[in-house]
């Protein structure tokens, strides 16, 4: 059967089981939007193309499926770049469709033309310019395959206007794509090596990362850690891959990691790092990172191995497959650990936990941001999907909201994109309409994509925004306080809109709390309302995130804030 390009596009999306698109129309995609008008595909009209990509990204992080966006050429396409780079840094599977001027005009500086495949080459896993109608269906199939296989990532497909109105035969069962084999099968010898290292280790530690969540390996990792009583710390992206309420959990490590996680890294004799890439925010100075340990690195991407940290045993492979093999190997060799073997190590960790717990001081008349997050956790019983913006709000969420399940902490880790949280929450809520979906935001970040309140209001996407409003670009201000003698250069955000009125102007409910005793009731009210709600919490202005490892320092050397903070 002969079909037009626009028809093939939606047929191909059905084949890929796409159930929602986030997008924004424009001249070059008028034909596609005309076809969309006639189809059953669900489409969410965002208010800025960056919002479309973050929403698709949030949807992908929460579901594990590929997120899809559709935007026009030129500025529509360039507006997606920050979103694409965000997904690329965190290995999130997306397919982004951009309109393009007709093939005959490409290179002529036509109206709304830009070389988007050129622009996004370094920040996509792969991208395509579809030059002829015959290539359309195979390209879409290949793009989805590339996005979700191996180390996942965003793929962009540029669609010239004339290609989309041309016709060709469409036969979905007969589309052949190139073999793109991304996964490696680890050698059995590696299992034996790891087994040997584990049996002789006195102070083993697991470090879990985003790769565990992406590979759906959380259950296996949890099984391994519990069975052999190995304590677990995680990177920001790894939060939720091991239950945060388990006694073996040490919390996040790194620059704003817990005292006990960073101490455990510094004292362990075996570090099993799974699905991580040893970002500089995690390791502190490389020379002293896990200096007493043999390091095992399990990751699907060979280019992550020995990139930042030299490792003793690299195991390249899908983390789920490797953990499965490892558990099987240990069972076959009847490995059992002696409780006495762990006693000293677990005892030491318990001592660290008791000495410097994560804490803050909620006294006086000012709301502490950590208190808002803890109260939110208490009220939702942790049964919520949390997105964050970037900065202090993100770090406090990582520290004070306990994540028990994978895919429930949705945050821009690698790129650190302000403005991510609200559109991402919209994407998450589209996938999980019956779950509490909360964006924990800062007053700086939220203003970067505040226009998406209109999207939430239009479609009644009932996301909740918990705004930790301190009137500063808080994390930058914290660095200025600590390292630039309190010269607060352009971080004061006191000149800001009245967020309650702003919410109302968008058709969203706005609530405000200014005193600690109002926090719980405002949160209760906000969570119970059946509509999008922005809750403006006026929090302590100069609260800092602690512990903090100073940039370039060893992670065992932490600033803990004032004694009042830790007591």
């Amino acid at each position: 059967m002969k079909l037009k390009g626009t028809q093939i596009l939606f047929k191909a999306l059905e084949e890929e089981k796409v159930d929602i698109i986030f997008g924004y129309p424009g001249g070059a995609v008028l034909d596609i939007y005309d076809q969309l008008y006639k189809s059953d595909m669900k489409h969410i009209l965002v208010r800025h193309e960056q919002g479309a990509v973050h929403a698709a990204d949030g949807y992908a992080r929460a579901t594990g499926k590929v997120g899809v966006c559709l935007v026009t050429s030129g500025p529509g396409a360039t507006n997606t770049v920050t979103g694409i780079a965000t997904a690329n840094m965190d290995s999130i599977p997306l397919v982004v469709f951009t309109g393009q001027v007709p093939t005959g005009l490409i290179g002529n500086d036509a109206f709304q033309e830009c070389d988007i495949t050129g622009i996004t080459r370094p920040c996509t896993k792969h991208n395509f310019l579809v030059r002829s109608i015959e290539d359309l269906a195979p390209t879409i199939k290949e793009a989805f395959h590339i996005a979700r296989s191996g180390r996942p990532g965003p793929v962009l497909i540029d669609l010239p206007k004339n290609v989309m109105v041309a016709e060709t035969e469409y036969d979905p069962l007969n589309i052949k794509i190139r073999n793109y084999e991304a996964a490696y099968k680890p050698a059995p010898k590696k299992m034996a090596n790891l087994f040997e290292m584990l049996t002789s280790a006195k102070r083993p530690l697991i470090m879990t990362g985003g790769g565990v969540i992406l590979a759906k390996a959380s259950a296996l990792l949890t099984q391994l850690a519990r069975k052999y009583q190995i304590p677990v710390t995680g990177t920001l992206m790894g939060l939720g891959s091991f239950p945060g309420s388990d006694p073996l959990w040490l919390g996040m490590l790194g620059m704003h990691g817990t005292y006990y996680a960073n101490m455990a890294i510094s004292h362990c004799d075996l570090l099993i790092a799974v699905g991580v890439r040893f970002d500089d925010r995690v390791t502190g100075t490389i020379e002293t990172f896990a200096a007493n340990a043999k390091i095992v690195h399990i990751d699907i991407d060979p280019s992550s191995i020995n990139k930042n940290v030299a490792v003793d045993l690299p195991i390249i492979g899908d983390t789920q497959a490797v953990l499965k093999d490892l558990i099987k190997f240990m069972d076959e060799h009847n490995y059992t650990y002696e409780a006495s073997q762990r006693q000293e190590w677990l005892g030491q960790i318990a001592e660290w936990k008791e000495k410097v717990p994560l804490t803050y001081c909620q006294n006086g008349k000012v709301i502490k941001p950590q208190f808002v997050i803890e109260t939110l956790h208490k009220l939702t019983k942790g049964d919520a999907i949390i997105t964050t913006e970037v900065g202090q709000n993100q770090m406090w969420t990582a520290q004070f909201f306990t994540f028990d399940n994978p895919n429930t902490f949705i945050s821009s880790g690698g790129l650190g994109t302000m403005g991510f949280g609200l559109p991402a929450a919209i994407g998450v809520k589209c996938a999980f309409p019956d779950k509490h979906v909360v964006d924990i935001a800062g007053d700086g970040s939220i203003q970067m994509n505040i226009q998406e309140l209109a999207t939430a209001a239009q479609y009644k996407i009932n996301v909740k925004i918990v705004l930790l409003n301190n009137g500063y670009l808080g994390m930058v201000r914290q660095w200025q306080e600590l390292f630039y003698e309190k010269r607060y250069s352009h971080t004061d955000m006191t000149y800001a809109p009245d967020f309650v009125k702003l919410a109302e102007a968008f058709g969203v409910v706005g609530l405000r709390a200014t005193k600690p005793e109002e926090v719980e009731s405002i949160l209760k009210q906000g969570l119970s309302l059946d509509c999008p709600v922005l809750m403006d919490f006026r929090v302590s202005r100069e609260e800092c995130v602690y512990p903090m490892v100073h940039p370039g320092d060893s992670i065992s050397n932490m600033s803990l804030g004032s004694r009042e903070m830790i007591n």
Partner: protein
Amino acid sequence: MEKKEHIISILVHNKPDVLARIAGTLGGKGYNIESLCVNATTQYEISKIVMTTVGSQETVTRIENQLRRLVDVIQVDDLTNVESIHRELILVLLNLTADKKEQIKKAVDTNKWKIIVSADTYIILEITGDQSQIDFALARLEPLGIADITRTGIIALNLEN
């Protein structure tokens, strides 16, 4: 770690922007390409790229891994550590000035270099060889006044396959 020249052979899908992807991957990560040679193989849809880069073994391993991440890259081999043959072709234009004319002719005769264009006022030589032969030729020709030169960059063939 010791830095040296590495010859990397890459098989890629013959796509319009594959070279841009490879150059961008290396440039974006701060690695320099010293020479580059690209052409289709016996299969039109597959191209072979031979490039040289200077770095420690550690750096070159990283480069290889970065290249392998690219969807259009099929195979990457570092030919420096395997048995392989290397050749480069250079075209050299020399002006036959009165004072150098005899010296040039003598050098060409002695070394059996191939003259591909011979005019009254200039000659063009075609010289092929491995690295040491090319280095030798350049050292001899330099004092005679090279007016223009074009080099293909190194091509290489893996003998272990």
